[in-house]
């Protein structure tokens, strides 16, 4: 008997394997198998295989989780079967069908020795500096961060993001590349290809641990909050085990391990972290931190707009450089 988990490949799979799956297997004796892939790829695949789901539990980003939910690909969660969810922070309760597993921010990571002397990124506006021409990278799979930042800087409501398109286009010359996955982001940084990135905090910490001198800046406007979530695949015949798996994920010790290994912020309030980890930007241990340090794009709006943003972004920002 095995439980099949759909997740990102690489270090995210390893993370889940070493923490949540380990705990789950200890408790149930059931082995965990993975199917891996990019966020969108797996969404598409899940749609195609809705009659014969390939996985029992699916990890995905909060707003994409909404797409699963809206499409009926997730089962509504019976929270009573997840005792550990009692301590779940508000920001991690995404929808009736998917809840957070860990949190992080997308923010500015940079190599101090490869940017102009003294540049510190106190504000997102610093990204627009002409001195950064051809130095920046951002994800090609999710433009929501920079779009929401631009909206905020222009003082327009995110719903009217189009009004910030001038601002966005002004940033175009500073982009060098758009990374396609987490490893790609790390490579671009470690090779100095793009010394400034709008990047996942967890990845930046990982690079630090490998000895790369990368600084993580939290601009005054806040960093863009992200929550990676879990849901139970509709139509699974392993529902009980799936609940046990999700419960294991929210175990305070497991959450602490996740913070320790990959610097993902716990999503339960009762996780106990060492001070030096708790102090890291992008790790939230108090409700205030969840509020003050983050720039939050409403998940459902983000879900709704993702396709539109991606198309605009790839046609206007990525292509034709």
């Amino acid at each position, binding site marked *: 008997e095995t439980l099949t988990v759909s997740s990102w490949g690489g270090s995210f799979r390893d993370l889940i394997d070493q923490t949540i799956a380990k705990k789950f297997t200890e408790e149930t004796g059931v082995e965990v198998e993975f199917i891996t892939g*990019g966020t*969108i*790829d797996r969404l*598409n*695949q899940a*749609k*195609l295989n809705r009659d014969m789901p390939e996985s029992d539990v699916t990890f995905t980003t909060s707003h994409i989780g909404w797409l699963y939910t809206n*499409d009926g690909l997730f089962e509504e969660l019976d929270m009573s079967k997840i005792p550990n969810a009692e301590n779940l922070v508000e920001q991690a309760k995404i929808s009736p069908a998917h809840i957070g597993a860990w949190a992080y921010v997308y923010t500015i990571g940079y190599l101090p020795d490869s940017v102009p002397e003294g540049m510190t990124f106190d504000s997102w506006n610093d990204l627009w500096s002409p001195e950064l021409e051809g130095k920046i990278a951002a994800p*090609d799979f999710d433009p929501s961060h920079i779009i929401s930042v631009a909206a905020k800087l222009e003082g327009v409501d995110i719903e009217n993001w189009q009004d910030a398109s001038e601002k966005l286009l002004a940033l175009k010359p500073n982009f*060098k*590349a*758009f*990374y*396609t996955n987490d490893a*790609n982001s790390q*490579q*671009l940084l*470690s*090779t*100095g*290809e793009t010394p400034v990135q709008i990047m996942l905090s967890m990845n930046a910490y990982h690079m630090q641990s490998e000895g790369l001198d990368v600084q993580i800046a939290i601009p005054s406007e806040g960093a863009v909050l992200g929550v990676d979530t879990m849901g139970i695949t509709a139509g699974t015949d392993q529902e009980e085990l799936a609940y046990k798996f999700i419960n294991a994920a929210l175990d305070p010790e497991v959450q602490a391990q996740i913070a320790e290994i990959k610097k993902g912020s716990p999503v339960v309030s009762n996780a106990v972290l060492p001070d030096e980890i708790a102090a890291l930007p992008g790790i939230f241990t108090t409700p205030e931190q969840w509020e003050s340090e983050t720039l939050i794009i409403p998940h459902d709006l983000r879900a709704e707009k993702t396709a539109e943003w991606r198309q605009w972004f*790839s*046609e206007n920002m*990525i*292509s*034709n*450089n």
Partner: protein
Amino acid sequence: MSKRPFLGWFSLPSVLIAFAIAASFIAIVQYSFRAYVPGSLDPGGFTLDNFTTLWKTVYGQAFLNTVLLCLWTAIFTLLIGYPLAYAMVRAQSVKLRSAILLISLTPLFLGEIVRTYSWIIVLGNRGFVNATLMQMGFIDAPINFMFTMTGVVIALVHFTLPIVVVMLAAALSHIDMNLERAATSLGAGRVRVFASITLPLSIPGIAAATSTAFAWTFSAFATPQMIGGGKVQTISTLVYQVGFASFNFPLAASLSLVGLLFTIAVLAIFNTGIRRLEKFGAHS
């Protein structure tokens, strides 16, 4: 007596395979005229939308990139491959010939991933070339190879080189040495012998090698994907992206189809051109 023993049995497996090939080709043609239904693998009704979509800049740019990549790769591969093939066939020492053969052949059996990955390490901003040049003080800032046509072409040249060398060497080795000797005895120096005898007689080999280089480059996926990093989109990377990120098989199919027709057209034009060129050598 059975005049053609085994005809049936021997052709049966390949007939089945031919059916599979034909069927998958028909599938592609068929899909390319069908509508994309988001979230479904089953295509919608018949439409020409896919082909109108191809007029968008992204796709046009990918076509242009692919052509340029093929062109530059073919040119540089020839320029590098010809001397190598020549040395492989004509070097005096047997050891040197064997060494050249092994060195130029090994990459042929390494696959696209290993070789592309290696080039990333060579060409990156902190890669071997830039690190070395910077440490030696030749440059202050790294030269950009990654995410540029230049970088992709360098890796593609390396990728197509072995097959081109093998084909050129085969052509060169079949040129009768006595022809070159005859030219020498008639007073031609080495450069002239090469220009008036060796080169013209190897044109069929050059043609074959170039069209193969073209087909390989056209087909290459990992190299533009990994080194181009999304900045150098080609037909192959787009087909994959369209097919697997949005599961838009009809659009991917129409891209493939147009790409294929395009390959055939280019090879046809190229072959006619070469036939003209072959007549050219006689006047030198």
